[in-house]
């Protein structure tokens, strides 16, 4: 009897320890989740707090006297003549009239810098659209220059000594005057979503890179998904078992998944551009290179998904007289689809954030025009972020963060679509 009691005591004592161990493990688990969330939160807060000012942009209202004689055009000029005239003069004259008595060369230059360079082109487009405006005085809202914009957002401290500021005292006076006349206004920054890249921060937009990313991803998707899935299906369902060649291929696919991405860039440069003559910097070649990169991921994930379909499904189909192909495509693949899609999305998300292989094929470039097709030169979002972060102008800092936000949004949308598709294909048995 007493011996039995002793046993229960040991078990009880041990039980306490075991409970404690479980508690401890749970605590560490929760702690690691908490830490990862904390990091994510810090990252997101940091990016959002830096990036949200970029969604606003300062505009300046100018009453421009559209005197055609100053720039040598009239209402009857041909569109070509209207196009070639230098509208900058009209804006310069307007500014001169608003702020008379600016003589100093340096100050004259600074005066021009209140308004973005794009103002002249905006004016040109408006006049070509409606030449009847010539001869009248019209109010226009123009983009303000980046320095004015940065000041309006409170990133330039006017209490600092003058030498330490990018906006000097005389410029402050001008801005104050404009503010007093309600000629400065912060609005939603539509340019950021409708323009391509620019070296002037106020004119720079993410659209070029966004479309570039989209086109590149489409090419990648169109190639890597079917090739990857078919390869996985063959290897899993049709390839002979215990064959040396199949083993070699399997090992190589696993190795490929671990190859640094820049290597694929070099390969792309040599094969696609060097041998096949695909144009440099085009989304097509970017998509091809990223296809090489995502293929192993998709194949490995798809194989795992196909493997996890219970053999009973196959046996049942075969037992009812379905052929191997019918079994595979009618039963196994639909059931494996959610897993396949997960793998594809992981691969695509990797490809979306990639810059290294694109460096070799010329997609790390200044491209101002929004690409129209997969053969136009273009860049992608991570590259745009990198290029902006490397620009000296202060106003690009916030645009860098804003671009990161757009990239994250793009990823979220992509994942969301994947989740929807997965839900649609999911089957219980």
């Amino acid at each position: 009897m007493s011996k039995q009691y002793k046993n229960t005591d040991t078990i009880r004592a041990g039980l306490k320890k075991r409970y404690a161990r479980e508690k401890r493990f749970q605590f560490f688990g929760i702690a690691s989740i908490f830490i990862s969330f904390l990091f994510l939160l810090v990252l997101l807060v940091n990016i959002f707090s830096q990036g949200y000012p970029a969604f606003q942009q300062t505009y300046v209202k100018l009453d421009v006297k559209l005197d055609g004689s100053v720039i040598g055009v009239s209402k009857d000029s041909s569109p070509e003549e209207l196009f070639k005239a230098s509208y900058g003069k009209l804006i310069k004259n307007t500014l001169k009239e608003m702020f008379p008595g600016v003589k100093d060369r340096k100050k004259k230059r600074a005066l021009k810098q209140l308004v973005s360079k794009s103002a002249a082109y905006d004016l040109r487009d408006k006049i070509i659209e409606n030449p009847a405006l010539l001869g009248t005085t019209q109010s226009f809202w123009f983009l303000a220059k980046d320095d004015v914009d940065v000041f309006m957002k409170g990133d330039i401290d006017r209490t600092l000594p003058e030498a330490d500021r990018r906006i000097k005292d005389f410029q402050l006076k001008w801005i104050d005057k404009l503010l007093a006349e309600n000629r400065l206004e912060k609005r939603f920054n539509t340019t950021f979503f409708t323009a391509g890249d620019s070296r002037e921060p106020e004119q720079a937009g993410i659209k070029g890179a966004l479309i570039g990313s989209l086109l590149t991803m489409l090419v990648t998707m169109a190639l890597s998904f079917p090739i990857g899935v078919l390869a996985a299906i063959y290897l899993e369902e049709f390839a002979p078992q215990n064959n040396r060649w199949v083993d070699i291929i399997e090992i190589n696919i696993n190795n490929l998944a671990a190859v640094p991405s820049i290597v694929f860039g070099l390969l792309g440069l040599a094969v696609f551009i060097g041998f096949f003559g695909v144009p440099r910097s085009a989304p097509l070649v970017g998509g091809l290179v990223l296809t090489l990169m995502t293929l192993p991921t998709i194949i490995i994930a798809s194989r795992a998904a196909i493997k996890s379909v219970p053999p009973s499904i196959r046996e049942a189909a075969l037992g009812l007289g379905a052929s191997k192909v019918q079994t595979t495509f009618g039963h196994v693949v639909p059931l494996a689809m959610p897993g396949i899609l997960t793998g594809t999305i992981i691969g695509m998300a990797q490809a979306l954030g990639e810059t290294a292989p694109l460096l070799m094929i010329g997609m790390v470039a200044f491209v101002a025009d929004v690409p129209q097709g997969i053969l136009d030169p273009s860049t992608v979002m991570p590259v745009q972020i990198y290029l902006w972060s490397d620009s000296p102008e202060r106003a690009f800092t916030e645009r860098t963060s804003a671009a990161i936000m757009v990239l994250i949004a793009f990823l979220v949308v992509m994942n969301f679509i994947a989740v929807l598709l997965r839900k649609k294909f999911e089957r219980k048995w």
Partner: protein
Amino acid sequence: MKTIKLSLMAMSIATVLTTVPASAASRDHINIVGSSTVYPFATVVAETYGNKSGKKTPKIESTGSGGGMKLFCAGAGIDTPDITNASRRIKMSEFKKCQKNGVKDIVEVQIGFDGIAIANAKSAPEFKLTRKDIFMALAKEVPGKEAGKLIANPYKTWKDVNPSLPATKIEVLGPPPTSGTRDAFAELALEGGCKKFDWIKQIKSDSKAAKKAGDKAKAKELKHKYKAICHTIREDGAYVEAGENDNLIVEKLTKNPNALGVFGFSFLDQNSDKVKGASVDGVAVTFDTVADGSYPVSRPLFFYVKKAHVGKVPGIKEFVAEFTNEEAWGDEGYLTDKGLIPLSEEKRKEIAKNAKDLVPLDLKAE
């Protein structure tokens, strides 16, 4: 089943697409590669050209001067770049390679200067450096007391290098070896200080003498020795490679007032509220001192045009004209707003004329 059909269709479309571009032999946009230092200037010009002409904006890749030359000289085909930017002059070896690959006529256009600033935080004490100080503080090996002997760099603080400097630890943030700025810094600042030692200078003149005498191997060996002494930067932590991102260096300087940073003048210009430049050899780094050449750590910037492509790719002439326009590269031009230091007016006129006439470069004649 539907998905499979769809994906098969997508695949066949994709294969069709891949076979198309082989026929896309002509190009409607200018293709530019080259130096990351010239990149900010070339991009502004490209944009202005695009806006003014209504044509496609040139595509500009930042590949570094050497990488740009390699692509540029790869051949005269339409798939090679039309223009390459460089933060140094084309080398004889590159020129020869160009010629060998059928790129016969190259037009050289110098666009201005770029100063390399050595700066620290606004709150930190002012630095008055000489090139010799820079060399002694940053070279891997420095001349010891005995002439002709090198010792591993023993200096820990700036005061050890030069008693008139502050007693702060030597800590310089600068670009990595892949950067053209680093090359130029080594060549202009370090070598400039290195040459102040007579026996080191002697190595260079010996090398030249050997070359004249026809002893090529010896000349090469001496030249390498000279370069190894003058261009090798210490690796014991005093020089910190801060990556190619100059904004990051500026950011780090404001957080660490004891450190100095090395970057292009345009970054100093844009961040004058955060950092200030040190004077070198008694000359402060300003727009004017770089322009007149009195600030010693500055270099010329170029771009090179492939003459064979003029006429084949639309707009090259107009682009060159926009670049060499007073509105762009003049004393008051928009490029100076971006930090380019202009050439003298005479020189601008001469270069603009040569560029307009597309006078090809002949390196042998010089």
